[in-house]
């Protein structure tokens, strides 16, 4: 019963990502959207936190990465970049969604 967790907050302003990671279970997926994509920036504290999590798949929304100037060269490893269609596929392939507003 995998969950898709949707995180739209910068990890440097709000605790949404931290709380999400504290409640995600093995086999779940976390998609970073809107300001949530700032967690993907290589070398950042949040990116290091993502790297230390095992058993969770991470994705980030390409439109939000591009809008914020986060190119491939700035992306931390282990995060799949998806477009809106890929986001839809994650929603339908997981059993349910939880938005960490």
């Amino acid at each position: 019963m995998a969950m898709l967790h949707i995180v739209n907050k910068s990890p440097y302003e709000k605790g949404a990502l931290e709380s999400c990671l504290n409640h995600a279970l093995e086999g779940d997926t976390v998609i970073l959207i809107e300001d949530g994509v700032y967690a993907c920036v290589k070398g950042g504290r949040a990116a290091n936190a993502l790297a230390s999590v095992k058993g969770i798949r991470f994705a980030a929304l390409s439109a939000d990465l591009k809008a914020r100037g986060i190119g491939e060269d700035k992306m931390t490893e282990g995060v799949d970049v998806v477009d809106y269609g890929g986001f839809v596929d994650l929603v339908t392939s997981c059993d349910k969604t939880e938005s960490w507003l």
Partner: protein
Amino acid sequence: MSEGIKKFLYVNRKAPHGTIYALEALEVVLIGAAFEQDVSLAFLDDGVFQLVKGWDTKELGSKNFAPTYMALGDYDVSKIYVEKESLEERGLSEDDLMELTYEDEDDDWAEKSSIHIVSREEMARLMAANDVILSF
């Protein structure tokens, strides 16, 4: 899962008063109660501040909706889960919370507490065990 009945979890992570989310979340819960689904409420992170007793909104001039939490039991909303770690991080314990009760029809209408203090791990499993999650 029984035919046609889904497990709804209302996840409350925001404090009351500073924004309207807590109040409007309660409005959804009250309407949702009429749909005879399996309903649970989760309070974690700043959401635990919603249940702290002793509200006085007179000077602020806003609606005091604390009584609505107390009335949840009358709407058959009796499964309220509060995360222990979220309380402790904020210097709170169960004693700081409103007394939310319901009458158990399977136990001669005995008055029981609706509040269950759960660990973070139990909260994670609770989320996973529901069908529909409405986040506020």
